[in-house]
């Protein structure tokens, strides 16, 4: 199933947006976190600066997000992980309110209560969680609701290769297959779970090979390529929409940055990232689009500028938004 010009340009545009968002965040995140601004003796202070707390960025992992979400509508549900920005952006979550959430501002998706691992956008039906493996059960729920409401909505649960060994994954795969739920399970294999390589955590090479044990299709995408993901995801999404049940897709991808910003990465071969970046999916897609005659150099420059501006606007909106009032903390436990 070929993506075609429109879809391919959309994926490229979104990948640019994601990459710029992540790279901008990587810089902004460091503001106020380094000596001499911090406690004497510290090399870095995770709790300082305009964007405190943990920060998991997805630079390099754009293809899996855009390749799947290119098939989705606003009424479809996506549940992401602790590393959620690429999924959120691909699903159409507004950049400004997303960034504002990370700045802890009232204008944020969760009024600053959630933070970067807890982005909730009911309009675009996106959510995520900081708990590994927790994306699958609620995706089953969205899919079950679609069935009960007689809608052709589908739900996508993204999870990492490290998450694959969490009990929740197994229970959800069985439940979705048993009830023929319109879910697409997408395992994002970036080879690492913090410092633990897949080979030290998973007893087989492909998580997708576990699909057979649930009676659902297992689809393997061996390259970190948006079009390859698009082609693999298409049939799975259609199958779900037709009410024929779930699928499990596994995508090989690359983590360019540390597990979280500030990660010393002592566990990682020094040259690994440099080599991975040689295969960067964004320039690869650019040349493909030009080869196809879908994009000129001028149009490329426009798209890049557009992505930069969107991200810059989002961060500016976030910075300029007001902080919540301290006592707002007591609100919203219940609606």
């Amino acid at each position, binding site marked *: 199933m070929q993506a075609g010009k429109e879809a391919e340009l959309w994926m490229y545009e979104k990948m640019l947006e994601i990459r710029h968002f992540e790279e901008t965040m990587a810089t902004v995140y460091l503001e106020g976190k380094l000596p001499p601004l911090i406690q004497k003796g510290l090399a870095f202070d995770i709790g300082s600066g305009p964007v405190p707390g943990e920060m998991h960025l997805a630079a390099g992992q754009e293809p899996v997000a855009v390749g799947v979400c290119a098939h989705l509508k606003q009424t479809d*549900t996506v*549940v992401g992980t602790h590393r959620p920005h690429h999924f959120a952006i691909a699903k159409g979550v507004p950049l400004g309110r997303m960034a504002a959430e990370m700045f802890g501002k009232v204008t*944020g*998706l*969760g*009024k*600053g*209560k*959630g*933070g970067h691992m*807890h982005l*909730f956008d*009911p309009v675009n*039906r996106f*959510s995520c*969680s900081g*708990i590994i493996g*927790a994306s*699958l*059960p*609620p*995706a*089953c*729920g*969205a*899919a*079950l*609701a*679609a069935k*009960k*409401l007689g809608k052709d*909505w589908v*739900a996508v649960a993204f999870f990492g290769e490290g998450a694959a060994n969490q*009990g*929740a994954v197994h*229970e*959800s795969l*069985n*439940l979705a297959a*048993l009830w023929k739920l319109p879910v697409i399970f997408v395992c994002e294999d970036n080879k690492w779970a913090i410092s633990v390589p897949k080979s030290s955590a998973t007893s087989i090479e492909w998580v997708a090979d576990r699909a057979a044990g649930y009676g659902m299709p297992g689809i393997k995408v061996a390259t970190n390529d948006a079009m390859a993901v698009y082609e693999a995801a298409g049939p799975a999404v259609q199958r779900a929409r037709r009410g024929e049940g779930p699928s499990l897709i596994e995508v090989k991808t690359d983590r360019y940055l540390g597990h979280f910003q500030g990660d010393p990465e002592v566990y990682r071969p020094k040259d690994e990232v440099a080599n991975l970046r040689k295969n960067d999916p964004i320039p690869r897609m650019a040349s493909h689009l030009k080869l196809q005659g879908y994009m000129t150099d001028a149009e490329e420059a426009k798209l890049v500028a557009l992505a930069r501006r969107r991200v810059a606007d989002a961060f500016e909106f976030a910075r300029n938004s007001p902080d919540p009032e301290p006592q707002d903390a007591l*609100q*919203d*436990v*219940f*609606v």
Partner: protein
Amino acid sequence: MSNTRKLTMAQAIAEGIGQEMQSDDTVFVMGEDIGRYGGIFGATGGLLDRFGPDRIMDTPISETAFIGTATGAAAAGMRPIAELMFVDFFGVCMDQIYNHLAKNTYMAGGHIKLPVVLTTAIGGGYNDAAQHSQCLYATFAHMPGLKVVVPSNAYDAKGLMIQAIRDDNPVLFMYHKGIMGLPWMAYFEGSSNEVPEAAYTIPFGQARVAREGSDVTIVTLSQMVQKALLAAEELVAERISVEVIDLRTLVPLDREAVLRSVRKTGRLLVADEDYLGFGLTGEIAAIVAENLDTVQLKAPVKRVAVPNVPIPYSRPLERFVIPQVGSLVAAVRELMTASVRQPLEV
């Protein structure tokens, strides 16, 4: 006025669920053995025949998956009821309950609502041992984000269940096996009572004065309310007048009802079937300790609960650790003879 009949708590709960399912298509039930079996403790008795397997859904033994499914379905517009067969099993699915169902609304800044009712069986007294006899409501009341309902009788159970289903927030509804009125387990007769046929609600956060009295306040909930009422009756002979407060819900908690009663009696016994330490009895005692500027105690606060051991299987052991009517009577007597020291002049 609709006519009333005497129902067991199990019947009252099933009736409440059935009436809401009748009037709201988005309400459905998921759980283990809730269909043909009708729920191990009868909370869904008869519902499969009325509503069919699409709305009364037996699940695999995958609590994490189906409770998380309830959360996801609620976010998408449904009003799921999910049953955790015994609260003792919470450990296999607590993450979906407290890190997601309970916290998502807050983390979303109130932008999403999760109308999920989680039903679960609590309590011992029939020798089901350490993994099938606990109450654990304090554990759920301790962590923010769930409303916690713990009824003591059929009338309250129906009204609180309908209130729970109509609530736009997650509600944990905990029924004690020993007051469900099952044909296969001894129960306290007082828990089966007159229940109106028509649907009705009981607001959360309003404790009930189950019995008025003037000498001692017993604050309790669930099956222990029935034990407290028997103890109060027994103490009449000794001219001790006991007031029994049935908390009914722990979140929200009716602190005022506790203070009002203790201000009147000056003596407090907190009676609980949960573990003693770091739980319900501590919280209720603390509410009084925090208010000693307006509450005048005649005796130190007393707590009766499971003495920080797992629930043992053997009958004499279980009867020893779970407070019985006799333990409440003895505790009240002690309160009547105890006294507090004068505070130091400042």
